[in-house]
């Protein structure tokens, strides 16, 4: 029986950092795609992982959540080593990823899709329902609760992805290119939702090709090129 990791009981030996990735290396189909990625994420912050297509952003996220295997390096979350852990166990610790393709369950209603996330923390339908409704309200999808997920437009699908993730009560949310396929106005609207998540104290890491594709202004920027973290992290300034 896999038990949920109670992060409050963990020894916080990482100072203010919730996540620390050190010298991460990973291969895909024989090619080394990650060759020394470092990433430190402060608790409650919003960090942007910026890099061109193929730089390895999605693979970094996949390694963190256990969806892909890494060759070497360390991935510590509240001091707890995530490397080698099962994906579902990592999700229970509060590390949740959203993917560019979306996490919608096409033939489910919006409410049912969010309930899938809410059931991570409880097996009681009434409690799961309360959490799902809360997530729908925060993401502005309450009115669409009974709409089929595959009938939503692009922006609402992104909102649904965030609602599903939010319903799991995450501590650390990895948003992989969340604004992909959205127009400028839609990115602004999505930014409002992502900002609301940040305001709730959820730590965010947003992977994007550039800062213009990042729906929220990050507090810290980490650049990645060809699987290697480029330079030291930069802090966002007012003119970004």
């Amino acid at each position, binding site marked *: 029986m896999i038990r949920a990791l109670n992060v409050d009981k963990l020894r916080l030996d990482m100072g203010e950092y919730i996540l620390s990735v050190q010298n991460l290396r990973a291969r895909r189909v024989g090619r080394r795609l990650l060759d020394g990625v470092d990433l430190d994420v402060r608790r409650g912050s919003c960090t942007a992982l910026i890099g061109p297509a193929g730089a390895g952003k999605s693979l970094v996220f996949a390694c963190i959540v256990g969806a892909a295997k890494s060759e070497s390096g360390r991935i510590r979350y509240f001091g707890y080593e995530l490397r080698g852990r099962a994906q579902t166990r990592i999700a229970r610790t509060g590390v949740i990823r959203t993917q560019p393709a979306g996490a919608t*369950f096409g033939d489910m209603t919006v409410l049912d899709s969010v309930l899938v996330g809410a059931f991570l923390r409880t097996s009681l*339908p009434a409690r799961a329902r309360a959490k799902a409704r809360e997530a729908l309200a925060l993401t502005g999808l309450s009115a669409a609760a009974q709409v089929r997920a595959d009938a939503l437009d692009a922006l609402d699908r992104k909102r649904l992805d965030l609602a599903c993730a939010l319903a799991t009560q995450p501590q650390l949310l990895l948003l992989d290119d969340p604004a992909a396929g959205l127009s400028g106005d839609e990115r602004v609207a999505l930014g409002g939702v992502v900002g609301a998540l940040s305001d709730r104290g959820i730590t965010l890491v947003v992977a994007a090709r550039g800062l213009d594709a990042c729906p929220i202004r990050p507090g810290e920027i980490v650049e990645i090129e060809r699987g290697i973290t480029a330079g030291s992290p930069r802090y966002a300034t007012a003119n970004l």
Partner: protein
Amino acid sequence: MDFAADIGILVFVFAALAVASSWLGAYARIVSFAPAVFFGIGGYAVAVSNLRGGSPWYGALGGGLAAVLLAAICGLLFLRGRGVTFTAVTLALGALAEPFAAAKAWLGPGDVFAFPHRIGFLNLQFAAKWPYLLLALCVFGVAQALTFGLRETRPGFYLHALRTNFGAAQDLGVEALPPRLLVLVVSAFVTSVTGSLFAEYALGVSPHALLALPLGADIALIGLIAGPRWPWGAAVAGAVYALLAHLLPLHPDGIAGAVVLGAEALAIVLIAVLRPDGLFTALPVRARRSPMESPA
């Protein structure tokens, strides 16, 4: 009157079997050829009870627990990944069960074992047909209620998410094994209890009637045909099968029987691969509205 009762019993028995099979084929996307094995375990459990003079109620319970144990072992060992190994193992179990039961003397005579007549509720034998009809209706009712329960609780949501978008479900922390294992053991228990009831109704067991591979293939096919969208689909498919099986020789002996079994196996593979949502998807069924959502 007895003829109608016979038909009714068969309809409810096979509807219950179809519903239990649909939890695997339609909801969990597990192709299992072992339903006849669990059905036979239930039948032979009450046979052993009759042989030793015990109550068939205990036999039915013991058979159900034995089926759960076998299902749990098979599930824990072989149900990881996409379940191809599990399907192969259930095929082997289904093929071996009939000769095994025929060869073991402690399971009764090898061909047909007719139960001694011991009319009475405690012996699960009745002079009239209607008590069997009532019990078959009860078993079917429990199975159908479990279907509705499955659709509205965490295992049902998880199975739905896994078959719709496996990767996204795993991103949300959905584990594949626990809900699949749960439906496997519950399906095994219900199938076994149904087998116990059927054996008492028939007042006997035979390896060919309870454990034959074609019966397992029939039950698996019914479970797949129904699909998960319409909650009554499996029950209807099972009832139609029972009527057809009563009126037509679905599995003739000799070459014809082998051809039918081959065609059935092909149909199972084709539906599992090409139409995993079953053949009832053309029916105008509304998107499911969660009963947990109260109107605004």
